[in-house]
């Protein structure tokens, strides 16, 4: 269950099937990102793919009849039309056509009728239709998937296609469960189920021959856990995404001052960059130590390189130069990123902010926390975005608290010129009336299991104040693998497959409204202890992108649960 090698194997297959010879690859916007997440350009060059072209933009009319053409596109109407035009007037000698998802037969027929010069050699579906971020994490790159707190139709279809592609590329025919009470989750689960039944031959993997429990697909809703994307993160990958934003494995530093020219855009791929691969889940402190040792090693090597006295030294230098160059590139890149991160952390007083964020998320101490929030959000060093996040966390936690004082906090925000309407929107999006499960461990005295668990947690104390919070997802996953009863909270849509009280071997989790890197870390930890879990989401959120999604999703609807904050709402929500 490795998504990156899943995509890689597919692409290798494409390159291999077209045989030897020079090749061009014809892509659309989405498949370009899909390939770039798994392969670098030099990887493709090694496979004799020398040119990249977009089917949908900027095409030249140059005919290169000695090239073979690999076409890898999503089966959209527009793409089919463009491809048909290409086939009517072929520019290359042979076409190997691969669709990233299930394509209707009528489209195949249409294309076949256009291939008048017999240049098509292969037409195939290869289900590489998702962006693999980490081996256990995929995204569909849809920063907004909802409007009026319901699915955008395109986003719904795309999610269905993305998830079926994941299932097919891993050869899973799962039990499908969804979060009860979430309409979005139910709708998506239903659509996936319909697709699987429609193409049942495709999903006939005979995986249950050995009698093991079938895999599980769990469709969740971001609205159950609005806290995780709001918290500041301290593990490397998550922190980079929160502070600098990772998009398609790339970090854009072009608008940062003092960044050297070569590092305006950095590629962060655990697959190609060993340092990143081993350290993306390490926390900020560990990274500092690791990069220090890396620096020392590098300097030692650099010193070795410097004393070029004899011819033998020179020869040694030339011979080890490629590795040296590679290493120096890695060191400088990560040094540059860490530098940015530490600069931002200090400037924005993130240590103090984050500590309070974690306290709010994990402990119920209303009055003390309220005082600290008031003090911090008035502090000029704390940015208005961070202040807003603190207030949002407070509002979520103490929504039903007797002395809840969100209004006065919002007043401070407003006086600093912040977008106070974010907080009521967030409550509408994921307030108490929407959520199920106990996000804040509001333990009822009847729940003995939870009570003891919390007690033990309390006794153990906190190892690290910045990483106290564990996402709700982790608890859910642990419950699943312990074989707890799932039906009331996560009903199954194809209950005929449900095994009797056995936990699944493999689990695919999809979060409508976006996953986060903190959750990816939780999944990574569970996978390390022997489970097989894949996490996916409509996108990978950091706090800013999450707030934007909340605002878009609630845009234009009438707010019913935030009467007390009505003067801070934006006008079209009243």
């Amino acid at each position, binding site marked *: 269950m490795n998504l990156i090698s899943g995509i890689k194997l597919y692409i290798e297959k494409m390159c291999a099937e077209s*045989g030897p010879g020079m090749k061009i690859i014809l892509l659309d916007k989405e498949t370009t990102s899909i390939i770039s997440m798994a392969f670098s350009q030099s990887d493709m060059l090694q496979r004799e793919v020398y040119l990249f072209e977009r089917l949908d933009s900027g095409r030249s009319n*140059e005919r290169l*009849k000695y090239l073979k053409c690999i076409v890898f596109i999503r089966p959209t109407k527009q793409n089919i039309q463009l491809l048909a035009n290409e086939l009517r007037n072929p520019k290359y000698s042979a076409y190997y056509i691969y669709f990233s998802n*299930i394509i209707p*037969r009528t489209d*195949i027929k249409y294309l*076949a009728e256009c291939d008048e010069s017999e240049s098509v*050699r292969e037409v195939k*579906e290869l289900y590489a239709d998702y962006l693999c971020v980490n081996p256990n994490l995929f995204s569909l790159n849809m920063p907004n998937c909802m409007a009026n707190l319901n699915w955008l139709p395109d986003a719904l279809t795309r999610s269905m296609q993305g998830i079926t592609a994941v299932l097919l590329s891993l050869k899973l025919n799962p039990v499908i469960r969804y979060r009860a009470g979430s309409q979005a989750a139910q709708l998506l689960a239903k659509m996936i189920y319909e697709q699987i039944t429609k193409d049942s031959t495709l999903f006939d993997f005979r995986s249950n021959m050995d009698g093991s429990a079938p895999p599980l697909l769990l469709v969740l809703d971001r609205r159950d856990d609005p806290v995780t994307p709001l918290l500041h993160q301290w593990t490397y990958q998550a922190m980079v995404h929160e502070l600098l934003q990772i998009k398609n494995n790339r970090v854009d530093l072009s608008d940062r001052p003092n960044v050297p020219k070569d590092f305006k855009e950095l590629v962060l791929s655990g697959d190609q960059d060993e340092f990143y691969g081993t350290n993306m889940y390490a926390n900020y402190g560990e990274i500092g130590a690791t990069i220090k040792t890396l620096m020392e090693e590098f300097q030692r090597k650099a010193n070795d390189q410097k004393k070029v006295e004899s011819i033998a030294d020179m020869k040694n230098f030339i*011979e080890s130069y490629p590795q040296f160059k590679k290493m120096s590139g890695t060191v400088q890149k990560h040094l540059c990123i860490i530098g940015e991160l530490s600069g931002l952390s200090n400037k924005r007083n993130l240590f103090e902010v984050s500590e309070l964020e974690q306290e709010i998320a994990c402990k119920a101490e209303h009055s003390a926390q309220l005082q600290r929030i008031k003090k911090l959000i008035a502090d000029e060093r704390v940015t208005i975005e961070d202040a807003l996040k603190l207030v949002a966390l407070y509002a979520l936690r103490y929504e039903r608290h007797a002395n809840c004082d969100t209004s006065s906090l919002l007043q401070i925000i407003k006086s600093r010129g912040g977008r106070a309407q974010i907080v009521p929107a967030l409550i509408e999006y994921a307030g108490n009336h929407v959520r199920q499960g106990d996000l804040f461990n509001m333990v009822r005295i009847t729940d003995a299991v939870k009570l003891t668990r919390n007690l033990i947690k309390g006794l153990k104390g906190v190892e690290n104040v910045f990483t106290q919070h564990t996402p709700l997802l982790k608890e859910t996953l642990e419950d699943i693998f312990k074989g707890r009863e799932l039906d009331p909270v996560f009903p199954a849509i194809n209950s005929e497959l449900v095994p009797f009280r056995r936990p699944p071997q493999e689990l695919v989790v999809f979060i409508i409204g976006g996953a986060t890197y903190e959750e990816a870390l939780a999944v990574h930890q569970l996978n390390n202890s022997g489970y097989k879990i894949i996490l996916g989401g409509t996108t990978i959120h950091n706090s800013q992108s999450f707030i934007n999604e909340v605002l878009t999703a609630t845009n234009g609807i009438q707010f019913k649960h935030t009467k007390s904050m009505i003067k801070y709402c934006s006008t079209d929500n009243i």
Partner: protein
Amino acid sequence: MSSNPFDSDEDQGTASGEILEGFLCPICRADLKSIDVLTDHFARKHAEEEDTLKSVFNIFVKAKKKILNNFEDERNGAAAGSSSSSTAAGASSSANGNGADQRVLSNARSRFNVFNYMSKQQVGAECSHFEYFQSVRNPRLERYASETNKLIIRLHRLLKDLPTDSVQRKQHEQQTVAWLDGTSVKLCPSCAKSFHIARRQHHCRLCGGIMCNDCSKFLALENALQLASLSTSRSEPMQHMHQGDSAIRLCEHCLWLLDTRRDMHESRTCRPLLVQVYEQIRQLQKDVTPDLDMYLKIINSLHEGETIFTIADASALRGKIGQVAEAMDMRSKRILAIYCEPGSREESLKKAIRLSCIQAIKERMLSLPPLPNEAHIQQIQERKRMETEQRILTEQRMAMEAYERYGLGATTIQSGGGLESGTFAQGSDLQSINNWSAPQASTSTSKSSLDDPLIEQINIIKGYIKQARQDMNFEVVETLELNLRELQREVYERQRKSQNSAAASPEVEQQQS
């Protein structure tokens, strides 16, 4: 151009004296317009002549294959040729999504596992639509192909002895292809404009159809000759004569068919200089791969103190690799030098090829570990020898200790002898390791073993090794060296035995006496 269907048609034509075309029934000679109708007709009307049917049908199938698939055959032939030499993955392209495909792919997969350190993950599910695609496409293409072939046959006949005089030419043209009667046609069928004195009727020379001058297309005579596969040299005088109107009037459809055919042929035979040089580079790259692995192996074995290979071997191989790298570099530069429009895709293609060449050279060839220092290697070898000696000594000592501890009480001459011979065997082993390169010069028995077949064998193998070294065939060197060692050991065994027996026999004699 073997693709021309005319050759097979010609025999038929000359035999009957009169030329018919179309889908003819070979028995009643009726034109049945399409393949399906013809086969159907044949099955129904001529069912009693089953034998003929069979043979004729076979001919028909063969002819059809030849006409329709000659490109395909060409391609398959080329693919078959390449698949034997190229990687398994490469071969998968030639097998068009059939059973063979599956088998080949499983090979390819196992290759990925070895080289890319991927987990045991399999390629995900897939679904091929090519069969359906073909089932839609091919009947269409077949129709076009038979239509095109008809046109080419006509073109051939039209051009074969085209009269020079324009009146005669018209007659000839009308004889070959009957022109449609234009009296009832009032409008041009393609642009729907009415015919009158200024817009006269014209005829397509290949299908006889009617159109106006504006809708007429022209095929240059030169191209026409090429299409009809009449060599230009044969028709040179003719070309000379027709300089005035050296084009053939065609309707749009016929021209499109002919153009498509030419295009297909071109795209399948197109091999510009760029492709040729590129293929050379790939070949070089492929040939050098085993050398690279061999070099690493030699270096490793040297560092481990083995004596199969010498430093000279390594340096020779390194030199060879360097030469290949240079050749690749040169060729990729040559590709870069081929002229093309600036800013074109071809230019970026050439740059990409150059880049990948540089990359391959850098990553695979220049990053090879350096040659080891000779003194250093000798040191390693010396150390290894010492270690072996040390080990043998300790073993001997331990054996002796064990012997003293347990054997003192109940020693028999036999066990003592066994032990002795055991240590002796080890000693001789050691000797054979140390002196493997000079076995003849060892003991007094060498004289008698000069004509020993084993020794002879050893000498032969040594000769082979020398030759293999010269040819830089290091894999052979390795196996031969190992063989040599075994032989040498064997020789020593035997020598020792004969010495033993020689030493033992006087004792026996003494005892007996």
